[in-house]
């Protein structure tokens, strides 16, 4: 968490800077399970990227490259929606 500003440091007229949600790291909301990506199984359909409610699926040049664990809340939607068979490219695993 970044340093808390005092009243005089705030932007005038109750403005807040835009796009600052990235500074709020929601990764510490996870309750013991995190998604793990298995690139050897992944077919790059990007359904996980579409389904993730926290923009925590990292994509570079239209390819899934892994997870942003600082923001992933561990909801498991990506693992559930992953269509590869018989082995999923995303599985939920216990965190240590």
């Amino acid at each position, binding site marked *: 968490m970044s340093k*808390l*500003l*005092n*009243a*005089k440091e*705030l*932007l*005038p*007229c*109750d*403005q*807040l*800077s*835009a*796009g*600052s949600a990235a500074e709020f790291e929601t990764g510490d909301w996870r309750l013991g399970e995190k998604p793990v990506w298995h690139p050897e199984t992944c077919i790059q359909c990007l359904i996980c990227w579409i389904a993730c409610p926290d923009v925590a699926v990292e994509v570079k040049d239209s390819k899934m490259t892994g997870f942003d664990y600082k923001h992933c809340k561990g909801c498991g939607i990506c693992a559930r929606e992953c269509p590869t068979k018989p082995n999923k490219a995303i599985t939920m695993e216990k965190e240590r």
Partner: protein
Amino acid sequence: MVTLAKTGNEVMAEAMRQIDPDVVAAYPITPATEVVMIFAQFVADGLVGTEYIPVESEHSAMSACVGAATTGARVMTGTSSQGLALMYEILPIASALRLPIIMCEVNRALSGPINIHCDHSDTMGCRDFGWLQIFSENAQEAYDNVIQAVRIAEDPRVMLPTMVTTDGFIISHCMEKVEVLEDKVAKDYVGEKKSPYSVLDVDKPVTIGALDLTDYYFEHKMPVIQAMKDARQVILEAGKDFGKRFGRPYGFFEKYKLDDAEFAIVALGSTCGTARVAIDELREKGIKAGMLKLRLFRPFPAEEIAEALSQVPNIAVLDRSDSFNAQGGPVFTEVRSAMYNRNAKIINYVYGLGGRDINVAQIKEVFCQLGRADKMPMVNYLGVRE
């Protein structure tokens, strides 16, 4: 300057025409109906460039005002009583977002029982919502106050919404002689609206009205508190400049025969006109009566009021609304707090609820009772069948 015969509502609409706001969103309600009705006619006739938004309720009216104001638009509205009460949810959002919305508020008793006449319960109900509250004694002051309110509210030191009030029917519907400025002169005084941001500016995106919990809510309230304090200086500057340009100076309040007074009343709004007559008649009999007519209720200039009343030993504060077994009405509790540690006897009269008339004889009776102020109850009810 032209001299016209106009009612309070007509002259507030006239001020709005000269201000030519970008957006007006309003829902008509007695006795403020004419303010926005006449203004809507100005829009229909093409006399202003305003986007007029007819809405389905006052809640929507104030919501539309807030949305419009975040784009940097100059925004105005008008309402009364239940209409103001329906806006209550949105009013503190307007002040928290620092949106200088101007409201023509015509004081009318809150229901129930349902009533359409003047008291100050509607305006007093939102006294702690971060809005500036300016009261008017007559139509002339209503006009002058609306013109000044825009400049005060939009000053970078203030940036707070402001309501200018008149008294329902007593001012809103009575025709009086009013001196109205030339359009250009009024526009010059008001000036151009400047805004620190616009939500429509895609090159400079901002977040407005986000959730603010235990870690920041308090910090975000502090600038509003500071702006309300700073508004005092801005109000003085605007009133002084108004006087310099147009010959009618304004301050926090007006002293009427107060400097040598032994007995004084403190009041807001149209009742001050009646009180002047009572004071003049008492003065003819050699009774040193006087008045402090408050113009501002928010911000409340407590030190200056205490100073103005410092030489008066007996004071009656007149409240046109009650606080239901608080320590007197809202004006009384403020004035009495301002006078803490001062040597004056201060009592309260709650009067005129639901438009109950207050006449010269009753105000003279208040002065008469001030002669034995130490034997009077702290809170008295004037003009009611008990």
